[in-house]
């Protein structure tokens, strides 16, 4: 496709088309839409994105996306630091927070073990979790990773790493259909899952 009447337009389309799930056709539609908007509106849009990219921090405690070095959840004195819920990414934090049933803190792995995608244990935030546990500040670890084979295998890896410390390791109830990720679970089910978690050993097949 070399038929753009404007190099500027073409550049914008090229950038938009790099976003996940956006093909060239949609990218062109978005670019034309932005051209119709007020210039102030478009400036606010691009400012918000640049600012987000420049200024966003990752919480030093839990790796959650945050505006400060320590996120709101970790700095909240009412949250129990001794209970850590291990999740894949921020979408899971949002889903569990929406249930209003959980008062511990989180640990965001930033992915799950997946050799086919070149992701090994060293590529996700496992060492920082182990360090927290080693400092003996943790009583319970709740595993809330996706119910996929990769999530399941990551649970197993974490269990093997952490089982020799004196802590409880539990897993949220798998009421969810196979392949359903946490973000699609409705909030009531998830709230119940968090409350009815079970010891990890019991979830292992014999």
């Amino acid at each position, binding site marked *: 496709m070399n038929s753009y009447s404007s190099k500027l337009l073409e550049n914008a389309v090229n950038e938009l088309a790099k976003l996940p799930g956006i093909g060239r056709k949609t990218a062109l539609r978005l670019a034309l839409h932005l051209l119709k908007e007020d210039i102030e509106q478009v400036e606010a849009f691009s400012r918000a994105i640049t600012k987000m990219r420049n200024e966003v921090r990752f919480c030093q405690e839990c790796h959650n996306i945050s505006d400060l070095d320590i996120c709101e959840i970790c700095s909240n004195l009412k949250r129990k630091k001794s209970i850590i819920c291990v999740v894949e990414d921020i979408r899971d934090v949002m889903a569990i927070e929406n249930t209003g049933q959980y008062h511990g803190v989180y640990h965001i792995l930033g992915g799950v073990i997946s050799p086919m995608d070149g992701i090994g244990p060293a590529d996700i935030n496992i060492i920082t979790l182990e360090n927290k546990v080693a400092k003996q500040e943790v009583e319970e670890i709740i595993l809330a990773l996706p119910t996929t084979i990769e999530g399941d*295998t990551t649970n197993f890896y974490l269990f093997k790493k952490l089982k020799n410390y004196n802590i409880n390791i539990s897993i949220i109830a798998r009421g969810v259909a196979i392949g359903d990720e946490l973000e699609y679970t409705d909030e009531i089910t998830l709230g119940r899952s968090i409350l009815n978690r079970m010891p990890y050993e019991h979830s292992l097949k014999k």
Partner: protein
Amino acid sequence: MYLKRLTLNNFKNCTEADLSFSEKINCFIGNNGTGKTNILDAIYYLSFCKSYFNQIDNQNIKHETSFFAIHGYYVKNSKQQDTISCTLQRNQKKQFRLHKKLYHRLADHIGLFPLVMVSPYDRDLINEGSELRRKYIDSVISQFDKVYLDDLINYNKALSHRNALLKYFAVNRTFDKASLEIWDEQLVNLGQGIFEKRHKFIKSFTPIFQEYFNFISDGKEQVAIKYESQLKGNDLKSLLAQAIGKDRMFGHTTVGIHKDDLLFSIGGYPLKKFGSQGQQKSFVISVKLAQFEYTKNIKGFKPVLLFDDIFDKLDEIRVKQIVKLVSENSFGQVFITDTQKERIDKIFLSLNIDHKIFSVDDGEVK
């Protein structure tokens, strides 16, 4: 369960058809390339959401038209009528409906309207590699056992991850036991269950199969299906441990249920080498008939049975035996295609069965 009526629009070489069927036997007679097999394929679509012959949906739309539509009206019992439709606009997503309600997951439909297809391609089960035979039993078992299907999908994923890891180790000249072990554990857990289910399946499947083979071939030869697996008498955990050196050298996993196979034999010898063409044909037809009965026993009602051009190379007596067999009450609705009108006419002359004969010419059905 039977298909009462089928309508087609622009499906393969058929512009339009509206057919009402017999509850028992329906025959489509026509020369090769006239499109009689396409009717069977349309019926196959309604059960499996895809073509038996051509997996590329778009290529099943009639040339120079923009869509195809298949509608089937099924009777499950005296009270219940089900309408299934499959429509496809060229280059769009296929729409599959039960009672006008669109499916979001096609997998939810599979198994609701069971069907067994017997076709000349079945000989591939004998001639091709072990993968095809594994696929065959997997497809039969997963129709009733969704846990089996999930376990199988997860096993294959875990296997790919483990292989990716072995390759990574080989390329980078490193090794990390802990990273590999977690995948071993998954393969062991999932593989053991799959092994047991395959073993159990073949055990209950084989006697049914042998009975059909004896009936079709007048019980002259002894036939067998043997399930072969490295897991027989070994546990996968120790197999993986023993094979680790080999696995690292080859860069992939050399033991597991992905190496399973079925051994077909006749008179104690491998069927592929020692079976005649007629014996091989009777063998795979018997496998399919056993699949029919196995499905019927689990579902509690009779699947639809399709016979596509299988009578060539079979002697007249065997053909008659088969038609007689499937006319019995233990079978339900049957669809047959054949090139020779005389053969079919002669069979029905001596058998008193409810049947309908359609002649097919250039996509037109009468």
